[in-house]
């Protein structure tokens, strides 16, 4: 026999729940599916995220669509992926991109996008304080996507698909720049890379064999490079002047001041954030302005090319007064062999990160 009590209780509850609602013009908000992206053990135990923007299947999927959709740009021709290509670990292979809406070269090199969830300052100078805030930069920059945020929100609002997708992700089909930013941030936090041959080596997994010279390269790397390129993120998240230039122009609103432009501290002028070395073989050219075309040029810079300036990293001053890192040409070759073991083929082929269109 069916229990009448249950129906009566449900009836009473439903009266309570609907009593003061607006007329039911919208269907109830769909449930989003929360999840935690998987993280390889040598990297971290969980992926951090801001409380206001947890991972949901729907949010990440929306972020992925927005990331690849040129609708984000003012002329509908430039997407995030124009300068952040998966095959290049989400970098672009160009020193200073001309892929923006004006075709004008940008003033800094497009960085690779990976393991961003753990980074606490974004852009080369750390000026963006979180990914949600960062995305407003490229979307609005006149030489990147050149978009007006209000115009973008209303364009997406008119789109046949996006209002429904925002509803799935955020429980409301009202499209705001905050929600655009949050979806893009969710997707970008899932771009996790730690499955290179080196990673399998440290986790003692199948496929984790390093050759003799690669292992010697690893030992040299630990001795000479790891103080800034700290494993296993291969960045210390700090800002250093690595001896590229002797002077820093105040032109273009002190652009060349690097970190000094953000902190307004004299001692930070000429410093940039230590980039990760993961997938470094895929992300040429190198440095904040893409001045070095090859890894050989990069390591040769540390060997013979470091120049002095007031904020030069003390790690690059040897006790004998010489600048740079004291390594032989042979040792340089071995370090480069090791750097090539940081390429993560699973990352650049991961179907969850590919163009959904």
């Amino acid at each position, binding site marked *: 026999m069916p229990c*009448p*009590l249950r129906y*009566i*209780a449900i*009836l*009473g*509850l439903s*009266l*309570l729940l609907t*009593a*003061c609602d607006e007329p039911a013009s919208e269907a109830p908000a769909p449930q989003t599916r929360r999840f935690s992206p998987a993280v390889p053990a040598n990297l971290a135990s969980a992926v951090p995220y*801001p409380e*206001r*923007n947890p991972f949901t299947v729907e949010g990440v999927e929306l972020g992925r669509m927005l990331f690849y959709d040129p609708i984000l740009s003012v002329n509908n021709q430039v997407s995030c992926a124009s300068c952040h290509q998966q095959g290049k670990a989400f970098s672009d292979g160009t020193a200073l991109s001309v892929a923006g809406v004006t075709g004008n070269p940008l003033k800094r090199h497009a960085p690779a996008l990976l393991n961003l969830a753990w980074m606490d300052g974004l*852009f080369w*100078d750390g*000026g*963006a*304080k*979180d990914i*949600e*805030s*960062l995305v*407003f*930069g490229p979307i*609005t*920059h006149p030489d990147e996507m050149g978009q*007006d*945020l*209000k115009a973008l929100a209303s364009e997406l609002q008119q789109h046949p698909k996006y209002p429904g997708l925002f509803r799935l992700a955020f429980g409301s089909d009202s499209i*705001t*720049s*905050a929600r655009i*930013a*949050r979806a893009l*941030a969710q997707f970008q936090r899932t771009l996790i890379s730690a499955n290179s041959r080196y990673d399998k080596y440290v986790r003692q997994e199948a496929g984790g064999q390093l050759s003799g010279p690669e292992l010697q390269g690893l030992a040299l790397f630990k001795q000479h490079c790891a103080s800034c390129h700290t494993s296993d993120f291969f960045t210390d998240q700090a800002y250093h002047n690595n001896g590229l230039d002797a002077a820093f122009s*105040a032109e273009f*609103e*002190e652009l060349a*001041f690097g970190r*000094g*432009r*953000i*902190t*307004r*501290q*004299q001692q930070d*002028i000429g410093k940039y954030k230590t980039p990760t070395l993961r997938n470094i073989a895929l992300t040429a050219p190198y440095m904040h302005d893409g001045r070095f075309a090859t890894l050989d040029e990069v390591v040769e810079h540390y060997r013979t090319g470091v120049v002095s300036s007031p904020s030069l990293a003390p790690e690059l001053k040897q006790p004998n007064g010489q600048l740079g890192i004291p390594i032989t040409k042979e040792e340089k070759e071995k370090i480069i062999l090791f750097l090539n073991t940081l390429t993560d083929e699973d990352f650049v082929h991961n179907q969850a990160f590919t163009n959904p269109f």
Partner: protein
Amino acid sequence: MKSLHKIILYAILLPLALFTTSCNDDGTPGVQEPGSITLDVHNQYNSQALQLDNEYNTSSGTKFKFTQLRYIISNVELTAADGSKYKVPESYYVLEKTSAAERSKVELTNIPAGKYTSVTFSVGVDQAVNHSLDLAAGDLKTTSGMAWSWNTGYKFIVAEGQALDPQTDAWESITYHIGTDANYRTVTLALPTAIEVEKRTTSEVMLVAELSKLFNQVNILQYKTVMSGSATAEVATQVADNYASMFTVHHAHSMKME
């Protein structure tokens, strides 16, 4: 079975009881209902209404014209006669005087009834909201042009204009965009007469922003462009100290609506 009947009865009656009271919108006698306050900020220069493109003298004698002025007022808090405080939620306002737009009034609604004796607000944006652009609240959600995306945060004040260089007799562009946490300033002003807020009263607080103070002790011909740059950080701090001291209360009053 007896207890089951009781449960059924409560299952019906409890939601019904809630239902009948939860939509009650009538005021309870004896308790005053919330009211509203208009904050009206008059931009002045030497006690006269500020005009764009009008020639002024800065305190150091430089001839200067404003071409646009925008600033953010936030985190408005009211202090009552009994010392209790009420912080207006999501209170972020962009006030502006440009060739395209003018906004000087802010409507503070749903303010708890009471007698208020002082008003506190900040120029700029508090650190939490300043550090995450997607947390934009109030006017920051919809007003463009005040956010810095390359260095996360807001321009607390945008003051642009032209200054006459006496050496060359040429008008030079002056651009002051002041922001960053260090330049966030909080101002508390006592009201000359307390305002009485409740539903059937309109209250107004008229403030004056005396813009002649903005460039006190600043050589705008030497520092024509001041943004968040390192070389001009001290100039920016001086301007922040100046805008912290440029506000006064002209008058405050409450009127009963009949």
